[in-house]
Structure formats: structure tokens, C-alpha cells
């Protein structure tokens, strides 16, 4: 590849060979385990091998990438080529929610959950055209750094850190929860203990090497997770229809599901858009669909752990190309997820429902033991499993799918390793985003600007461990489902950060006062709606005479926060003095790829 990287180390020059060899070794490892399984090695051992060996590899990369240099720790030395940054972003992006819950959500809700598929991909178009190249040209360490520079001062910086913390912390709790589910199922320890085992896996990747270590483990994790996601579904497609392209064949599964739905008397068809529980068209469902799509897309373009990935490319041009590679690698999983859901549904409808309960397969027992995620209750005591008696949690559809379909156990272990890779990689990125904002923006920029490099890196690492421990403890209390928690994080980020970031680049007239007022008001409205409708529905009802504004669910809270953020930013900016000539020159300089950034305030430069 013709990437021009001046600081060419042996490693960056040989990335293709290194990761190609790694992918080959991983496939070999899977084949060896498959052979061992045929030779009678117990399932538990195979589960252990997958969990511990993959974590061991990530830890090894993490330790090799340890560093004591600031630019290596914060932005991986800015040597990550577009293609590999795309892979790392894919792993950073696809979390427990994408890997574990999304197909499960599609299984349960059908068309309505395609909002997640759309919302979690289309946002990259916004990242590409509105933000990524300009933030790369700006070229500092964190997203609040940009706010603090463009809006001249600590007000905007602190607001940025608060929003970042709220969104990323909600998100990371969901990841710890996912790690807990997988680890407890596959190595047979309690959920609470499993979370802390997973935590060790997260910390060992990010603590010593910061962004550099996280980048190169994320590339490794992407390879594991995409193989793990595609193999079972390709297998099933071949088994059912003889063609190994699930994205083509699940149309036939959708047709079979539709006819089984009529036979089983299901009112809400899988593929029907915007219908309520009775199968009738509903405007509330229609509005919730596009509101969710909008909030997830705008949230994508506001989440700091994603935006900071584009700080690591060698130049602006590669930052742009990197967004293309990111969405391509994400697309590979997302356009497969609906096939996963369709095949799972077909298997359950045709081989589980209507069977005698005494003869249900072994996977039912295995999964019934993990914290009430799968319940089978013979309500009418006829010994036959009815649809209403089979209650499966969305978070286990993907993980249990290979067993449901009767695939060898090695595939289950592979899927578990993939889910773990997805959750660990996202948790690493989030943890780094939070700890970097606290150590760089709060500690270094505001509390102790004279701190030495060693001291700054020590503070960063201590904060990293602290945040990780608190997140794991919160996840241990088993809060809401993964996908809902993650959607909240998107709304919070969208309402608080999108307006000041986009307007800061695209509208020179935006003033510091306008941006701060917009952030505070947009974020507050979003948080208010979320907290009130989730935790104090009676009070909300008493105040507004309705339980939801226009029936919009609180996972789309940013629908109310976004217009407020833009409106207030605009109004306050127009009422305050326009930004100085120097600040306008600064904006011009980040709009053009060539040339130096013109700093409006002396001394902000690293």
C-alpha cells in the first residue's frame, strides 16, 4: 500500500503481513479446537480456550504497545493508516449492543428494530462530511480540546467533558454488563464475578499503551468479531438453502416466517413496518422509527470515543478515507444482522415451538441457568411448548443461536469470543475517551498546566483504573437492557455535542456564549425528558398531562434536545459580539487541509 508515513517503523510498514498472519493463526486455532471437540474434549474446556486465549492475545498486544510518550498515549502517534483505522473504528463502534443485542432485538421486534441498523450506520455520512477531516486538521488530543479552543475558554471545555462523561459512562456500563453475561455463561462463574474478570481484560489492553495499545488491539478484535459473526450465519444459510450468502437467502426465510406466522396466529408480522402489537398501522410507531434513526445517527457523529479515532490518521486526506473504511467494515456486520434474526426465528418457529417440553434440546437447560434470560413455562400443562410459553431475552439470541441450530460447540465458543471482542474493544475506547478527557482537559489544561509528561501519564492511568472500577460496580447492579442503555448514551451525546461541534466548523458567527448556552440547554432538555419519563412517570404525567410527548419514547430524547441546542446557540450567538478576526482565521485554517493551524490564542498549542 502506498501510504506515506514519514515515521515509518517496522511495525506500521508490515501491518498487512502481521495482521494477515494473525487472521490465519486465529482460523487455525478454531480448526484445532473443532478437531479437539470431535476427539471428545469437553465443551467447558473449549469455552475456556476461547475466552482466555483471545484475552491473552489482546493483553499481549497491549503490553507490547506500552508507551511513555504523550502523542503515542493520546493519539497513537498519528501513524494509523486509513484502512486499519477503519477496522479499529469498526471494533470501537460495534459493541455488545451491536454484536449481542441487535439481531436479538430484530428477532423480537422485526421491522421496528431496523431503526437501529439504519441509525448505527448512516451517522458515518455525517461524520465524513461535517466533522472528521476538520477535527483531524485541528490535530489536538480530545474532543473537549476542540470546544475549549474554538470557544475560547474553560466554560465550553467543562461542558464538553460533562456531556462526554454522561454519554460515555452510560455506554460503558452497558459494555460491562455484556461482558458479564458472556464470561459467566462460558466459564461458569457468577455474573458479578465475571464482570471483574472481564474488567481485567479491558484494563490490560488500555492502561499501559493508551490509544496506541487500544488501536492495535481493536484491529485484532475486529478480525475476531467479524469472523465470529459471519461463520454461524453463513453455515446456517448453507444448511437451509445451499447458498453461503445469508444476505441473499434470508429473503426465503422471511417468506417461510410469514407463512408460519399465519399458522401460529401471530398478529404482528416480522417484516411489517410501523405496526402496533395488534398488527395495525400506527403513527406513534412511525414517528418513533424516524426519531430513533435521527437520534442514533446524530449521536454517532457526536460520540467522542469515535471522533477521537480520526485524530490518529497521518493526515486529513486519510481521515476522510478512513470514514469510508469504517462504515464499510461496520456494514459487513450490520447488513448480516437481519439475516441472523430471520434464521433464528425460523429455527425457533419450526423446531422449538410445538415440541414436547420434555424433549427440548440441551441448549434450553444451558441458557435457563444464566440469570433468567430464557424461561420455559408450561402454562396450560399440556406438555407441549406454545409460543407464549417460550420467553427469550434479546441479549442471548446471538450467543445461543449456534446451539439452537445444532451447530458444533466450537461455533458457540467462537461466537462468545466474538461477543467478548466486541464488548472489550468498545469498553476500551470509551474508557480511554473518559480518562483522557479527565486527565488532559480537566487535570492538565485546568488544574496543573505545568505538569510533567510522567505525571500526566500517571494521572491518566490512575483515572483509567478508577473509572473502570466504578463502571463495573454499576453494571453489577444489573440496570436496564444493553440496547436501551446504549441508545440513551447516543441521545445524550447528540443533544449536548452535535450543535457546538458542527456549528463551530460550519458557522463562523457561533460565539462562545452561544455554544455554551446551546450545550447546556440542549443537554438539559434531553436529560430531563429521559430521567422524568424513565424514573418519575407519575410526576411527568401530572406536569404535562401525558406520559410521553407525542408518544416519542425516551431512547429518542435527543429529538427534543437537538432543536433546542441549535436554536439557543443561534439566538445567543446573534445577540453577542461576533468572534474575533483571529478566531475566524483559525476556523479558515482548519477548513483547509494544507498549511498550519492559526491559533487564535497564544500558547494553546501542544
Amino acid at each position, binding site marked *: 500500500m502506498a501510504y506515506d508515513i514519514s515515521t515509518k517503523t517496522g511495525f506500521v510498514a508490515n501491518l498487512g503481513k502481521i495482521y494477515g498472519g494473525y487472521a490465519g493463526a486465529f482460523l487455525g486455532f478454531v480448526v484445532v479446537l473443532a478437531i479437539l471437540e470431535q476427539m471428545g474434549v469437553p465443551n467447558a474446556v473449549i469455552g475456556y480456550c476461547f475466552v482466555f486465549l483471545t484475552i491473552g492475545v489482546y493483553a499481549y498486544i497491549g503490553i507490547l504497545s506500552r508507551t511513555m510518550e504523550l502523542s503515542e498515549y493520546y493519539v497513537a502517534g498519528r501513524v494509523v493508516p486509513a484502512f486499519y483505522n477503519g477496522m479499529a473504528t469498526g471494533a470501537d463502534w460495534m459493541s455488545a449492543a451491536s454484536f449481542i443485542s441487535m439481531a436479538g432485538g430484530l428477532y423480537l421486534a422485526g421491522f421496528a428494530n431496523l431503526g437501529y441498523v439504519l441509525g448505527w450506520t448512516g451517522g458515518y*455520512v455525517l461524520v465524513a462530511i461535517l466533522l472528521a477531516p476538520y477535527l483531524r486538521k485541528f490535530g489536538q488530543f480530545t474532543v473537549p480540546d476542540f470546544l475549549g479552543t474554538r470557544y475560547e475558554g474553560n466554560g465550553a471545555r467543562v461542558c464538553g467533558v460533562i456531556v462526554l462523561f454522561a454519554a460515555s459512562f452510560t455506554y460503558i456500563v452497558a459494555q460491562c454488563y455484556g461482558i458479564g453475561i458472556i464470561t459467566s455463561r462460558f466459564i461458569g462463574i457468577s455474573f458479578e464475578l465475571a464482570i471483574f474478570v472481564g474488567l481485567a481484560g479491558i484494563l490490560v489492553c488500555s492502561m499501559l499503551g493508551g490509544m496506541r495499545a487500544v488501536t492495535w488491539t481493536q484491529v485484532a478484535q475486529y478480525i475476531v468479531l467479524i469472523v465470529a459473526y459471519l461463520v454461524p450465519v453463513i453455515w446456517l444459510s448453507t444448511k437451509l438453502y445451499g447458498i453461503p450468502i445469508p444476505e441473499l437467502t434470508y429473503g426465503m426465510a422471511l417468506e417461510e416466517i410469514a407463512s408460519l406466522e399465519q399458522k401460529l396466529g401471530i398478529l404482528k408480522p416480522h417484516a411489517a413496518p410501523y405496526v402496533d402489537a395488534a398488527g395495525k398501522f400506527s403513527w406513534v410507531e412511525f414517528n418513533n422509527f424516524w426519531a430513533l434513526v435521527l437520534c442514533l445517527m446524530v449521536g454517532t457523529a457526536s460520540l467522542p470515543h469515535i471522533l477521537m479515532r480520526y485524530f490518529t490518521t497521518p493526515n486529513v486526506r486519510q481521515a476522510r478515507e478512513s470514514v469510508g473504511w469504517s462504515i*464499510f467494515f461496520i456494514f459487513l456486520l450490520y*447488513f448480516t444482522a437481519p439475516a441472523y434474526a430471520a434464521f433464528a426465528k425460523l429455527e425457533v418457529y419450526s423446531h422449538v415451538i410445538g415440541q414436547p417440553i420434555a424433549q427440548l434440546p440441551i441448549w434450553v437447560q444451558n441458557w435457563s441457568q444464566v440469570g433468567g434470560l430464557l424461561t420455559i413455562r408450561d402454562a396450560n400443562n399440556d406438555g407441549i411448548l406454545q409460543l407464549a410459553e417460550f420467553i427469550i431475552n434479546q441479549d442471548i439470541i446471538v450467543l445461543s443461536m449456534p446451539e439452537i441450530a445444532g451447530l458444533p460447540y466450537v461455533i458457540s465458543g467462537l461466537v462468545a469470543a466474538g461477543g467478548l471482542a466486541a464488548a472489550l474493544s468498545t469498553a476500551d475506547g470509551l474508557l480511554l475517551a473518559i480518562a483522557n478527557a479527565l486527565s488532559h482537559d480537566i487535570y492538565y489544561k485546568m488544574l496543573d498546566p505545568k505538569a510533567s509528561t510522567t505525571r500526566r501519564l500517571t494521572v491518566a492511568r490512575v483515572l483509567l483504573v478508577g473509572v473502570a472500577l466504578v463502571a463495573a460496580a454499576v453494571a453489577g447492579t444489573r440496570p436496564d437492557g444493553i440496547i436501551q442503555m446504549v441508545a440513551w448514551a447516543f441521545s445524550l451525546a447528540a443533544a449536548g455535542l452535535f450543535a457546538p461541534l458542527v456549528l463551530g466548523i460550519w458557522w463562523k458567527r457561533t460565539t462562545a456564549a452561544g455554544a455554551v448556552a446551546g450545550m447546556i440547554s440542549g443537554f438539559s432538555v434531553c436529560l430531563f425528558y429521559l430521567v422524568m419519563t424513565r424514573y418519575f412517570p407519575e410526576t411527568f404525567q401530572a406536569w404535562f398531562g401525558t406520559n410521553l410527548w407525542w408518544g416519542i419514547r425516551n431512547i429518542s430524547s435527543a429529538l427534543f434536545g437537538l432543536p433546542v441546542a441549535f436554536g439557543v446557540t443561534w439566538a445567543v450567538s446573534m445577540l453577542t459580539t461576533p468572534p474575533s478576526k483571529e478566531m475566524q482565521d483559525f476556523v479558515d485554517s482548519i477548513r*483547509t*487541509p494544507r*498549511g498550519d493551524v492559526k491559533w487564535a490564542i497564544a500558547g494553546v498549542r501542544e
Partner: protein
Amino acid sequence: MQESTLSREKMDNYWRKTSRLMWTILALWFIASFVVHFFAVPLNGIKILGFPLGFYFAAQGSLIAFVVLCFWNAYAQNKIDEEFGVAED
């Protein structure tokens, strides 16, 4: 890196072209993200390879459009950068 030598006029032209590209892609993004799916109910009446078309667009069609838009943006913006001589060396 070196000092950018764009005159005010040239800078304004550069930004006008960049903005036009941004708005074009934003419009296509809006169509793929929302407009198409407003018609999901009638589109579902058409079936191709078993896929109801409204379902297909939300599950695959729009996603392909997003990938193409991102790569097209990178390509077209690089062209603009070279035309104005502001591409990195």
C-alpha cells in the same frame, strides 16, 4: 507543513465548492435515511427474492448507499483540494 497561501477570494470559492458537496451528500443522506422509509408500507407490497422491498431498503439498500456516499465524499473532496492546491503534500 507550510503556510497556506490562499487569497480571501480563493478561500471563499474553495469553501463554496466544499459546502456544495456537503449539502449534496447531506440531501442524499436524508433521502436514504428517511424519505425512502416513509414509503415502507406500499414498498413492502413488492417482493424480490422473498424480500419485501420496504424491509429490504431498511435492512440493506440504504446501508449500501451510506458506504458509497462516504467513499464518494472522500474522492470528490480530494479532487476539490487538488483543484485549489490545498491538498497535503
